[in-house]
């Protein structure tokens, strides 16, 4: 971007430079399915979807806890379930050698999935 395109900023453009730098690494966050990596590529795709659903479930659960509609026992069981789900996800990520960043697919103009 040419200098004269910046009409206003507070001084340092570090934040903007960092974001532009991230765009260059978007390629790494895309799903790359090829005949050679079908297994790991598929695992990444499936785990990404599972993680997305897990996070949505967790979010909805927190809304209910925050809304006060759950009893102490229900919160207790919810905590146990969510904790086990998170642990299981960690196990699977480790098994397939994946990190949190790997599961956050970039959806182009829509931004990151999670």
């Amino acid at each position, binding site marked *: 971007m040419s200098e004269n395109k910046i*009409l206003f900023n507070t001084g340092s453009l570090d*934040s903007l430079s960092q974001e532009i730098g991230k765009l260059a690494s978007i390629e790494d966050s895309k799903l790359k399915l090829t005949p050679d990596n079908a297994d790991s590529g598929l695992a990444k795709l499936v785990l990404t979807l599972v993680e997305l659903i897990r996070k949505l479930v967790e979010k909805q659960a927190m809304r209910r806890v925050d809304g006060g509609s759950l009893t102490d026992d229900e919160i207790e069981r919810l905590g146990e379930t969510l904790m086990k789900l998170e642990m299981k996800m960690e196990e699977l990520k480790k098994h397939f050698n994946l990190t949190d960043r790997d599961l956050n697919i970039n959806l182009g103009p829509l931004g990151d999935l999670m």
Partner: protein
Amino acid sequence: MEIMIYTLISVKEGSGKLEKLLLNIKGISGVALYSVCLNGIAAVVGENKKSDLISDKANAIEFAGIIEKLSQHFTLLPMRYGSFMESADAIALMLERNYQEIEQNLGKVEDKYEFGLKVFCDSEKLKSGILQKTEAETGTAAGAATEVKYSVFREYVNAKLKAHRLEELMISYVDSVIIAINTQLTLLQAEHKFKKMASASILIDSVFLLEKRKKDELVDVIKKLQGQYPELDFVLTGPWPPYSFVETTIK
């Protein structure tokens, strides 16, 4: 032969000015640019090879530069990079089929530029500030859950709940900033699109479509907003061709 369409331009007062300008602008890889016209709408095209252009970043930047130059002289609709048709006749037919829609879109962006506004923040610092402010206002810890008997599962839920509440507070804060920006933009009659929390450091990523003559007013508005929110960094860019406001799907 393959022809790449660069942009669609409004040439209501004749295409003479455009033809003259195109003599001094080269297309990607130095190809000559020319126009295919139909009743006040011109498609600027060049005979590029499709195989040479795919996934080439340098060419995409060159493409944007050409659109940029033309946008300084004409009202235009940028085409998606890599839009090819087989012949000038096919382009003329495309213009005829989509004439009404193209004309409407050109009318919408006439004498207007696109501007981009990114609002950056140090998210950790901001979250901590919001939390402190909320606690000061309510007199309680915003993230604190009701005291109940200790269990590892309950602790887990409490930690998640605290993070959830903080995120909700962040969303409310972002909404309040958007309302403040919107209030000012309404006065300038700007069309706008907002994306909330586009990344960890970009709180708001927005684009505005604004009359060319109101550029300085927009800069003043953003300066004022920066003063209102010293904890955030406002970066205003432009003018740009109206990339985000072209809503035509060519048939």
